[in-house]
C-alpha cells in the first residue's frame, strides 16, 4: 500500500516535471540567467507547486498523522545553521553549471545520453560522500 500510494504520487510529480519543461536544462538556465534572455517559467513551476502543496502541509502539520495513519516527521522549520548555508551554496553552483537538479536528473537518465548517467553517478557519489561527513540524514 505504501509502495502504491508513493508510486502514484511519483507519477504525478514526474508528469509535472515533464510537462513543465524543467527536464530541459536550457529552460532552467534561462531562468537563472538574469542578465541574458531571462525566462520566468521556473518561478511559475516552483511557486505553483508550493502553492498546490501548501494546504496539505497545513493540514498534516496540525494532524501529525497521515490519512493512512503513518507517523509524520516534518523537519525543523527554523534552524538556520552552517551546513544549511554551505550546502545550499554548493548545490547552487552545481545547479548553475549544469541546469540539472536531482528530480529532473532522474528523468534525464531516460534520455539515453551518457552525460546524464555520468552526472547522476557523480551526484550519487556526492550524496554518499557528504553523508559520511554529516550525521544528519534526511
Amino acid at each position: 500500500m505504501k509502495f502504491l500510494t508513493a508510486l502514484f504520487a511519483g507519477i504525478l510529480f514526474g508528469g509535472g516535471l515533464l510537462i513543465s519543461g524543467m527536464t530541459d536544462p536550457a529552460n532552467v538556465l534561462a531562468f537563472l540567467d538574469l542578465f541574458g534572455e531571462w525566462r520566468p517559467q521556473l518561478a511559475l513551476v516552483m511557486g505553483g507547486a508550493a502553492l498546490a502543496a501548501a494546504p496539505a502541509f497545513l493540514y498534516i502539520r496540525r494532524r501529525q498523522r497521515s490519512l493512512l495513519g503513518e507517523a509524520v516527521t516534518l523537519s525543523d522549520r527554523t534552524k538556520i545553521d552552517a551546513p544549511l548555508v554551505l550546502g545550499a551554496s554548493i548545490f547552487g553552483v552545481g545547479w548553475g553549471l549544469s541546469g540539472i537538479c536531482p528530480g529532473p536528473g532522474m528523468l534525464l537518465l531516460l534520455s539515453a545520453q551518457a552525460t546524464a548517467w555520468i552526472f547522476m553517478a557523480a551526484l550519487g557519489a556526492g550524496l554518499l560522500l557528504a553523508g559520511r561527513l554529516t550525521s544528519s540524514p534526511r
Partner: protein
Amino acid sequence: MTSTSVLNSLLGGLLIGAGAAMLLLLNGRVAGVSGILANVLGAQTGEQGWRLGFLAGMLVPALLYGVGHPLLPSGWPLAVIAGLLVGVGTRLGSGCTSGHGVCGLANLSARSLVATLIFMATAIATVFIVRHGLRP
C-alpha cells in the same frame, strides 16, 4: 514567453505540488528527491518501499512520452564536477529544489526559504560568470 509555456509551467507546477501533497497526505513523507536518493543509496533504514515507489513513479511519464533530446552539459568533466557539487550540496544542506524549494516553502519553513534563496543566488552568480563574466 508564450501563453503555451505559461500554461505548461503552471500545469506542471500544479502536478508537482499535487504529487508532493499526495505523498504527504497518504505516506506522511516529504517529496524531497535528494533526500530520497540519499536514503536509497545509503540504505539508511529498512523503510525503502515508498522511496522506491516514488522514484519509479517519477519515471513512468517519461517512459511513456520520452524526455526529448535536451542539450546536456558538454563533456564528462563538467558533468562530474556539477554532479558532485549537487550531491554534496544537497546532502549537506538537507534538500534540493523539491525538498526546500517546493515542500519547504509549502510548509512555510524559514529554513527552506533561506536555503532556496541561497541556492538561487549562487546558481544565478554561477550562470552569470559562465555566460557573461569571462568575456573580454
